[in-house]
């Protein structure tokens, strides 16, 4: 159990670090979005498989939704490059309408943790076994005071094709 003075010193050190680092904070513009594809998506020939891509935004940041409500905004978009399985539908979460000082109307965004779900059709002649399907997630992130340039990240989705019934 920590004593009161130990707790006080910890707090003091934290405050001191915050004061020293404060001028450097505006330069912290590293990517605020982390993408985690599923460990594996599996499906049988002549059937479907589903991939849930998890996305987590750093606190204070958002990305435009896939349906931004301003023509100039860059939408979040997930595209798959696959001849193995055929994308049928990509389901984006319901966007949040958030108010920002820089917009006179609420902006359609995603923030925090969310997932994008894609349904794929597995062709009858798809080779049985493991493969990797690649996708590209394009996004453009902002916080209250700044925006980062649009970026595209590659997603590698391990896919298991089963023989089916």
């Amino acid at each position, binding site marked *: 159990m920590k004593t009161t003075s130990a707790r006080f010193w910890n707090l003091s050190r934290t405050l001191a670090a915050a004061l020293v680092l404060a001028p450097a904070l*505006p330069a912290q*513009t590293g990517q605020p979005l982390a993408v985690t594809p599923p460990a594996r998506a599996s499906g049988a020939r002549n059937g479907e498989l589903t991939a849930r891509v998890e996305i987590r935004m750093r606190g204070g940041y958002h990305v435009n939704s896939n349906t931004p409500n301003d023509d100039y905004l860059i939408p979040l978009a997930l595209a798959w490059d696959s001849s193995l399985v055929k994308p049928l539908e990509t389901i984006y979460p319901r966007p949040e309408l958030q108010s920002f000082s820089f917009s006179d109307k609420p902006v359609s965004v995603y923030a925090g943790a969310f997932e994008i779900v894609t349904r794929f059709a597995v062709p009858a002649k798809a080779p049985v076994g493991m493969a990797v399907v690649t996708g590209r997630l394009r996004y453009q992130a902002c916080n209250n005071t*700044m925006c980062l340039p649009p970026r595209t990240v590659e997603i590698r989705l391990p896919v298991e094709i089963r023989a089916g019934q």
Partner: protein
Amino acid sequence: MTIQLRAIGAVSVFSLLMLAACSTSSQVRGGSPSVKPAGERNTAPDFTLKDADGRSVSLSDYKGRVVLLNFWATWCGPCKIEIPWFVEFERRHKDKGFAVLGVSMDEDGWDVVRPFVAGIGVNYRILLGTEMMAEQYGGVAALPTSFLIDREGRIAATHVGLVSRRDYEDDISALLESQ
């Protein structure tokens, strides 16, 4: 109890030192906390970019003027807050040797920039930026990013992200008056 009193004392002394440092810094900078003293300014890299009419524009064309070099994009919400301020600064200070140069970082080029600029009524020069030019200015990792350049072509202040209109006004006044 004695340890706690010592801790409070140490933090108080640290805080006072920090406040004193900030205060000294403001005095040196002559009223605008973001404007560097003349001796600490680096030369702004020269560049040549195209404007909406296809004319080449170089930063060196503006030597002798105070320049607000603003990196922005049509998809950047916070940039849209600043643009009307810059329109006003251009109108108010143009005759005193001041100019705004807006460098758009839109990948889609004039197809998106031209209608946007026309719609918002920009009265200053807009140029289309390149990655190479942005690299000269440290990469411009976030927008808006603005540089205040003094009459000798040196970077006097840098703002990354949206700052207050007052910050810009103080910077511009300090640079226009420092002759």
